[in-house]
């Protein structure tokens, strides 16, 4: 029997989930919307009707900085695996991004630090409209009138639907309510990853003026990569205690737009200019990713555009590139 959750019971559900595990959910922290640990006594602050959080939920599985090892007196200790937790209130785009990251990090040789966190986490997505086929996750709550229709995709998700706040019952009235928002141009483009791959690769030499312009506009600050739910480059760094007996190897987010991302010892830089580095960001997301995983590494969440201090709008850039490409290759339409 299908399960539904009255909308008014959301705080109670979060409270119940918080009893056994830490729950991360979107909340306003000092005016910014973030996935933050929920205080079980104040679950009213969980916000489900939102566009994007500042940082993507990837930060919960691939933190901005994490210790990999502690080496002390010839012994290497691995950091403790995290306790179980729940990520509540993911929107469809962030959920899709996590499912894609799962694929990236599971590709052999796998990234065990990411996967160990993922194994401990239950993902609960909440959609304001009908979600369609969910890309993954444990439980999907789709809004339908004053209730949410629950679709459990895993045993962990099913277990949640057995909590007392859920009621038995089929869809209330009609299908999940609300019309889907109109697709943005970027979402339309992402439906044809092959075209994007062709157009972006083509643009490097065939539309150099676009990259010249962007190379001047981009500040090379790396913000777009930090807020991207599908950027995952990193660097490793060793830290040694003052007495020199303990070394901690940590990894932290890097950004391919930063000056020395491709500089080898001795000083040779394989991507000397911002133009080259900024192009590489697109090349990774739309060309290399397409060849490696069969689709673009972008879910059109809009964060890179929203937080770019130089005002670069990736959607406009891609539309410009694809328009230019299609003028030369008119046969290449959707």
């Amino acid at each position, binding site marked *: 029997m299908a399960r539904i959750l009255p909308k008014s019971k959301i705080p109670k559900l979060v409270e119940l989930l918080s009893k056994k595990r830490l729950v991360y959910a979107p909340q306003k922290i000092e005016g910014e919307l973030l996935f933050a640990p929920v205080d079980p006594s104040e679950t009213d602050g969980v916000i489900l009707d939102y566009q994007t959080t500042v940082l993507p939920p990837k930060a919960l599985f691939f933190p901005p900085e994490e210790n990999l090892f502690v080496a002390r007196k010839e012994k290497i200790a691995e950091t403790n695996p995290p306790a179980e937790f729940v990520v509540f209130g993911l929107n469809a785009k962030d959920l899709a991004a996590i499912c894609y990251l799962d694929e990236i990090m599971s590709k052999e*040789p796998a990234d065990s630090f990411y996967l160990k966190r993922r194994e401990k986490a239950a993902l609960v997505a909440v959609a304001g409209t009908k979600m369609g086929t969910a890309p993954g996750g444990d439980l999907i709550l789709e809004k339908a009138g004053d209730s949410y229709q629950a679709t459990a995709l895993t045993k962990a998700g099913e277990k949640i639907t057995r909590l007392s706040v859920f009621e038995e019952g089929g869809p209330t009235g009609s299908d999940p309510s609300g019309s889907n928002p109109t697709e943005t141009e970027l979402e339309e483009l992402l439906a044809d990853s092959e075209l994007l791959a062709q157009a972006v690769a083509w643009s490097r030499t065939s539309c150099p003026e676009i990259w010249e312009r962007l190379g001047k506009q981009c500040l090379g600050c790396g913000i777009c990569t930090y807020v991207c739910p599908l950027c995952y480059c990193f660097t490793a760094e060793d830290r040694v205690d003052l007495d020199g007996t303990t070394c901690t190897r940590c990894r932290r987010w890097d950004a391919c737009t930063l000056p020395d991302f491709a500089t080898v010892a001795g000083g040779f830089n394989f991507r000397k200019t911002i133009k080259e580095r900024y192009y590489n960001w697109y090349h990774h997301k739309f060309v290399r990713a397409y060849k490696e995983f069969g689709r673009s590494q972008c879910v059109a969440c809009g964060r890179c555009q929203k937080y770019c201090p130089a005002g670069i709008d990736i959607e406009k850039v891609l539309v410009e590139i694809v328009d230019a490409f299609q003028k030369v290759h008119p046969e290449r339409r959707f």
Partner: protein
Amino acid sequence: MANNYRPQKAKIVKIDAMSGDFKRFRFILDKKFPTSKEGTSFVPGQFVLAGVWGYGEAPFGIASSPFEQQFIEIGVRRVGAVTAALHNLSEGGEATIRGPYGNGYPLDFFEKKDIVMVTGGCGIPPIAALCDYVATRRDLFDNVYLLYGAKTPDDLLFKDRYQLWEEKGIKILLSVDQPTPDWKGSVGLVSKLVDQIKINPNEAVAAMCGPGPMAKALENILRPLGISDRRIFVSEERKMSCGIGKCQHCTTGDKYVCTDGPVFNYDEVQGNWD
């Protein structure tokens, strides 16, 4: 779940200072690399991430013979933080190793063919491993040449192996830019040596590893010899933080140097802007 970032301890049992800023390190590993049916523990051209706690890790081509069961060797030019930390270690000291990583040279494809190896300066370590492989399985290959150039005669590395390689029928052609009075080899770019190479270009392969000037060597040697780009195998060098295709530092075009390479058909990476 395997932790692919966890390095193993590597005890330094021998250090050879081979030139002013280049040392060869011999390591005995806690856990040896698995051995293939042929008795090799890596493929020449594969690399390891060697590290020193407190300084990090960096990629190095394995320089010892792939048939060696007891130890592995790498060559390290002192050029940055990790290499300086390695240089400061002594015999009996400890470093860390992860690997072996990457593809290595396509040895099966090299069989029954002439081989022209071209390298310069500190680019020789993976080529040295390849020479050792060829020397051990010499019957499998036809004419084999090693062209090696360096700034001065003192900068020619791995001299202790030349005799063995020559005895096994590898023709070694050396060249330096700044000869000393007693220097008997050739002077200038290794490209001058092209006349001494007798191969059948349709049944020949080239293996390259080295710094930027190698591109010139490619134009001036391998082109005149008529070896097609597809049969020229180049080993690429990039910054790496992971070695397993995740961190994104080592990409060139659509390829990861760590997992797709470091050895590429020249026409796979030719023209890559990065």
